[in-house]
């Protein structure tokens, strides 16, 4: 049963990954990227890494991909000029592809000699009753609560710092002030004047 889902998820993931780089419309490309992420999430769940799956969903789909979408829609990027360097950059891409292929081949060779031959195999975690979200939560919120709070404060400082350095109070900006609007009276906002015929105000 699991293998059916595995092939389903991985087939769609590979298919949509190919589509990301082949479709003409950049918005469609981002949607295919999101589809890839969703299928990768499914693969993580099948492996029992439910926390990583949720993280992928929340961080990549929820934030990063939406950010991509915003960038594409908001900024007027000329995608035909981005594609122009295809031939020039092809050797670099090919090199990276060859390196990745080599890694896959090496891992197959490693598998042939069994798990004992792979360095660091003692790190393989035994399946246990505690699911990894609970285990992580225990570590973060109990053992390392002090560090967790410190990290939160660091993020707060980063946010305040960014605001301090970039926020400028601009003059001549028209703002809506609801209180001021509702407190206006008829007498000080409308002026009735007699206009003579043939003349302006």
């Amino acid at each position, binding site marked *: 049963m699991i293998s059916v889902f595995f092939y389903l998820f991985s087939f769609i993931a590979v298919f949509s990954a190919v589509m990301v780089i082949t479709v003409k419309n950049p918005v469609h490309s981002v949607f295919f990227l999101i589809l890839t992420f969703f299928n990768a999430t499914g693969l993580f769940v099948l492996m029992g890494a439910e926390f990583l799956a949720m993280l992928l969903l929340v961080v990549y789909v929820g934030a990063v991909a939406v950010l991509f979408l915003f960038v594409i829609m908001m900024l007027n990027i000329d995608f035909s000029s981005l594609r122009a360097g295809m031939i020039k950059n092809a050797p670099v891409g090919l090199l990276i592809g060859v390196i990745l292929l080599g890694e896959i081949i090496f891992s197959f060779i490693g598998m042939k000699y069994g798990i004992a031959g792979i360095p660091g195999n003692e790190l393989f975690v035994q399946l246990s009753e505690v699911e990894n979200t609970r285990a992580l939560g225990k570590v973060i919120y*109990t*053992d*390392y*609560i*002090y*560090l967790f*709070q*410190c*990290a939160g*404060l*660091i993020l*707060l*400082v*980063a946010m*305040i*710092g960014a*605001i*301090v*350095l970039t926020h*400028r*109070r601009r003059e001549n900006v028209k703002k809506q002030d609801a209180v001021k609007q509702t407190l206006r009276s008829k007498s000080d906002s409308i002026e009735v004047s007699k206009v003579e015929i043939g003349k302006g105000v």
Partner: protein
Amino acid sequence: MYSLSNISNLSIALPEIFLSLWLLIFIPLGVYSGGNKLSRQSYFSIFSIIGLLGTLLILLMGDNRASLGFYDLVVTDRLIIYLKALILLAAILVLIISERYRSIENLYLFEYPLLILFSILGMLVMLSANNFITLYLGLELQSLALYVLAAAKKDSLKSSEAGLKYFILGALASGFFLFGVSLLFGITGTTSFTLLSFNYLNTNEVSLLLIFSVVLIISSIAFKLSIAPFHMWTPDVYEGAPTSITAYFAIVPKIAAIGVLIRILYIALIDINFIWLQLVLVLGLLSIFVGAFGALLQKNIKRLLAYSAISNIGFIFLALSLGSQLGLEASLLYITIYSISAIGVFTFILSMEKDNIMLDNISSYAGLSKSNPFYAVCLSILLLSMAGLPPLAGFIAKFYVFKAVITSGYLLTAIVGIIGSVISAYYYLNIIKVMYLDDGDESFIIESRVNMKIILFISSTFILSFIIFADSIINFMTHISRAIIL
């Protein structure tokens, strides 16, 4: 160990918890009560000073026995409490003396005291760290706030440059630190200081990787302390940052970083001290000389004080490089006296203002002995002390450093250090010469606030009369330094 409700566990970090809660009240208060208005600035300063005083009170009321908490991530003992108290006091004084400067330079930001409080919080976390991870988080909390403070004067190109320079180089140093710590973790399997202190099973066989990681960790802390050859950023940042922030940079983070260095060298890495002894010694001597020669031709007082800080921290490194109780004592005494005299000098610089323009050039101090004798006398005392003239406090601090160095058998090192100290005396004396012998504008009267005058007076009196109660202070330092048993 298994329940956080254990109150003795929480009470270790009570000052930090109080300060962070105070900060969380401060932020909405600043936003909703006109944080950028001139009239409100002094309220925010007072609010943050009250927060620091409260933290100090909680710190001093707490238990001063050595204990671990938060699953051994946090530690406290006499030495840490003393250094924290010194940091809080120095920060309060810097906040008081920077008040007037902020109104001159239009730094009407409530974030200014807010970020200072954040960096103080980072330093407190750093000092009570018993783990490299805690230390790193404290270091980042402190540094991030300091980067922003360096660039706080948004309309000044130099200030932005200072902030950017400090940020990029600081991030690089943090990277070195993390690299070193991760190597150390790979070798020993722990990042806890207490575990590290008895984790080197065979100290005779030290791998090259261990040396590499120790060097990386020490050099990143040396960067934060602006020790040569990691001092390049210091003069530019000190010059570019707003002067009140320069005062803060020159005093408060140095105390924290020295405390952290003591904890790393004397607790975590004490078993392998043969790796770092010579390294720290050479760094110390090098920065004494870089500080002495670099300052000789400086025209700007802020740049000069940057080099002065480099050479002063060099003396502390020299004391720490001994790896002995005596060296620890000497370095604690030195950092205390250095911070008091630096507060005095910066109070003087922050009150040097003419028609709402700060006077940064040494030549503008000409004739100050006739127009403003009180300021000239106070500054002369402070500078003579920094130069190491006998009856003053600076002499006693240097004397203790060299005494410790000679007792440990490094006679040649002591001689070289004394030569460096004599060279640096030149530029301190040069400022006094400008004030007393050169002719200047006699009608120039410094208008300063009373509290700044009081701070200047107290710090110079302390420096002048230090010899009277030197014995009890040195005994106190010995008592404090016994917190770390070597």
